[in-house]
């Protein structure tokens, strides 16, 4: 109960009028940067960082983390309304969130997304409150083979689900890996696939790809289909929000499973993006309504959102205790910690308990504040869909390009976004899935690094992936998931031929 006492002390630090005001400001700013694709949480937080130099560290981290929560919520908003994920981790939310919005259920989708996100975040925070000591030790068990196993598991649980042909999935996956490989390679220290273009030195930003593939690609399709959003007819009443809140308990299985996946991926740290894809994949396999997935199934919104935020909040712990940031935003915040004169590491918990527990307490409060703020803005956001396409379409184009430029301030990225827009349009026309490409782009280079580091460590022997119980279990689980579609198909065929031979 020592942690509990520390937490209460933390609340006494965080629960002041000044800090609550900072949380509200942070959340609002966060939503603002979150709904602008490309600007996103990492950029938003680094823009705000200079303002915090003169603040005391607890207030500063409260402002920055609140902005982070706001940005995560804002990212889900654009995923659902416009099929443009504001953050890498909200890509999976588009799969069912956008179809829901198209069917006139934008308010329901947003409410579900925000509530499950809030739930996931709370589970994540509770976990790090109760298990702070244990979690940090557990994270130390992870080395390159374990990382590779975690990424492999994320791939395996998502890929092979497909409704489309496996061949198309492999093409999409392969393209994603190729895009991820562009730029400087950590393991060899050499440049790859840059063809002498200085603009490609930094690699292809995932955000540019998403803005093009989803945002611009989607707009081209909409234009072709006759310049309108199907959601226009939807009327948004505050009553819908309350009605949807009442349906939440129905998804308890998905909520708990996704929270568990999210916390696991946050700590290990596979990160929020891996968590949301994996959670969506497993929900689709295990749900009773699996046939509705991809066509506007509410559970397909609940699962990735819960896991995304559970991972996002539980990832703060490895950052504080080990000094390893789990996401780009966490990296910026860690830079902040050092400027405020704090050294992330195991001793931070002992040397600066007021800071650590103030932060953890503020995560409880910040997320509650964030959920309340975003819930009240739902009617506002959902009514955006009622604006005629002739007005909102060009605005989205402008926002997409501003976003693409803000990622790194390069005009080259504008062309890149346009090319990705064409690719996205062709993919949809030819019925190639985009999701495997995105997953490969986000996790591809990390998985590759982890694999090659493992091979250096073991001097080329694959047995390193079964060298201890942890990695062995993970990789075996991944293999089972990856080959399950083949096995089950074979079994079905066998059963069928048995049955037919009996008849014969």
């Amino acid at each position: 109960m020592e942690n509990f006492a520390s937490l209460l002390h933390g609340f006494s630090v965080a629960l002041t009028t000044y800090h609550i005001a900072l949380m509200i400001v942070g959340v609002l700013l966060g939503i603002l940067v979150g709904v602008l694709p490309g600007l996103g949480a990492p950029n938003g937080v680094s823009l705000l960082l200079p303002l915090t130099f003169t603040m005391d560290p607890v207030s500063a981290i409260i402002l920055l983390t609140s902005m982070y929560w706001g940005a995560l919520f804002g990212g889900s908003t654009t995923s659902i309304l416009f099929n443009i994920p504001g953050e890498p981790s909200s890509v999976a939310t588009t799969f069912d969130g956008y179809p829901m919005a198209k069917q006139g259920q934008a308010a329901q989708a947003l409410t579900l997304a925000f509530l499950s996100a809030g739930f996931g975040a709370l589970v994540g925070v509770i976990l790090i409150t109760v298990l702070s000591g244990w979690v940090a030790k557990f994270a130390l068990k992870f080395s390159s083979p374990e990382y590779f196993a975690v990424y492999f598991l994320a791939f395996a649980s998502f890929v092979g689900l497909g409704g489309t042909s496996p061949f198309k999935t492999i093409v999409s996956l392969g393209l994603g890996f190729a895009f991820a490989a562009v730029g400087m390679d950590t393991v060899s220290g050499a440049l790859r696939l840059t063809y002498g273009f200085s603009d490609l030195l930094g690699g292809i930003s995932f955000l540019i790809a998403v803005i093009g593939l989803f945002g611009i690609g989607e707009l081209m399709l909409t234009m072709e289909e006759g310049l309108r959003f199907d959601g226009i007819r939807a009327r948004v009443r505050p009553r819908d929000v309350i009605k949807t809140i009442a349906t939440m308990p129905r998804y308890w299985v998905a909520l708990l499973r996704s929270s568990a996946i999210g916390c696991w991926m946050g700590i290990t740290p596979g990160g929020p993006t891996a968590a949301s894809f994996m959670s969506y994949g497993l929900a689709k396999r295990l749900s009773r309504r699996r046939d509705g997935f991809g066509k506007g199934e509410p559970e397909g919104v609940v699962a990735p959102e819960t896991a995304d935020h559970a991972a996002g909040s539980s990832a703060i712990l490895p950052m504080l205790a080990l000094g390893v940031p789990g996401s780009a935003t966490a990296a910026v915040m860690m830079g902040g910690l050092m400027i405020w004169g704090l050294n992330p590491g195991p001793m931070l918990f002992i040397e600066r308990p007021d800071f650590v527990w103030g932060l953890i307490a503020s995560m409880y409060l910040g997320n509650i504040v964030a959920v309340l703020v975003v819930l009240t803005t739902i009617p506002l956001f959902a009514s955006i869909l009622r604006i005629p396409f002739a007005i909102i379409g060009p605005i989205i184009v402008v926002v997409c390009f501003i976003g693409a430029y803000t990622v790194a301030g390069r005009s080259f990225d504008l062309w890149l976004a346009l090319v990705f827009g064409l690719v996205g349009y062709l993919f949809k026309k030819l019925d190639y899935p985009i999701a495997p490409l995105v997953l490969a782009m986000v996790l591809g280079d990390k998985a590759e690094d982890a694999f090659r580091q493992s091979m250096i460590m073991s001097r080329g022997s694959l047995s390193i992936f079964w060298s201890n119980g942890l990695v062995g279990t993970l990789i075996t689980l991944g293999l089972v998931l990856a080959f399950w579609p083949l096995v089950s198909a074979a079994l079905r065929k066998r059963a069928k031929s048995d049955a037919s031979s009996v008849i014969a």
Partner: protein
Amino acid sequence: MPKKTPWMIATAITVAVGSMAHADWKPTKPVEFIVTSSPGGGTDNFARVVQSIISKNNLMDQPVVVTNKGGGSGAEGYVYAKVATGDAYKLTFGTNNEYLLPYVAKLAYKASDLTPVAAMAMDEFLIWVNGNSEYKDAKSYVEAAKAKPQTLKMGGSQSKDTDQTLTSLIEDATGAKFIYVPFQGGGAAGVQLAGGHIDSNTNNPNENVGQWKAGAVKPLCVFSPTRLAEGPKVTADMGWADIPTCKEAGVPIDQFQMPRTVWLPSNVPQDAVTFYADLLKKVSQTPEWKEYIERTSQTNRFLVGEQLKSFIADDDAKNKKVFEREGWIVK
């Protein structure tokens, strides 16, 4: 107010002429700090500390905007600075990678495309092992690596960067042979060592101090000619000054340090270079800078002008020798 116009023009001309006549160059619009690492990295921390000191102490009238261009291990930032030739509003923050990167990768800039302004600190390198490791000193560790070549794992940041250069120097000086495992950065290499997944790393003090305090890793020796500055004890019985130099400990390498450098594009007015050199000099004399140096256990060494040029030439030659021996140089 048409009547007032001639008067305003006259004033404007006086101001313009006045500032031209004044020999000192001064920024008249916001200055961009280009950071050649991603957020959270050592270079990022360096640039942002300088930014915070300038704004806290009002050392410059114009605001500072920090942008991260860390792609290609920082090459993205240097290429950006090369294209901005003549623009005295773009200050680039880096390390010795400015003149070392072009050796190991084919890049669209040459080391001479930027104007050196100052080196503000030297980051130190140490040999670290796991806290529970059987090795008590550098000598016994190196002997063990010699006895079982290619079995002990040395971790560090990406290939062909400072950590691997130092590993190569150790191997060359002692005859030991390690397996070098490149990670995404020093932070990751530090956690891998704390978790016992690798046997040692060559992290900078700042990258490992948190784990050292907790007893998860321990330092064996530091690659500097003299011991580090005395400071408060880090663990119960040891402080930075208690760590032997590697030469004392029997690893015959005098010195291996990484300068924290600041650059301007080419073809900028000499007055601008002088302005920034003076500004950075003022920064380095503040208590906040001293606090940063102590917290990160770097060596405070401020270099400008000829001193800086000869330091760069010397450091460049030393590293090039290793690159040549390892065959890393790209044609």
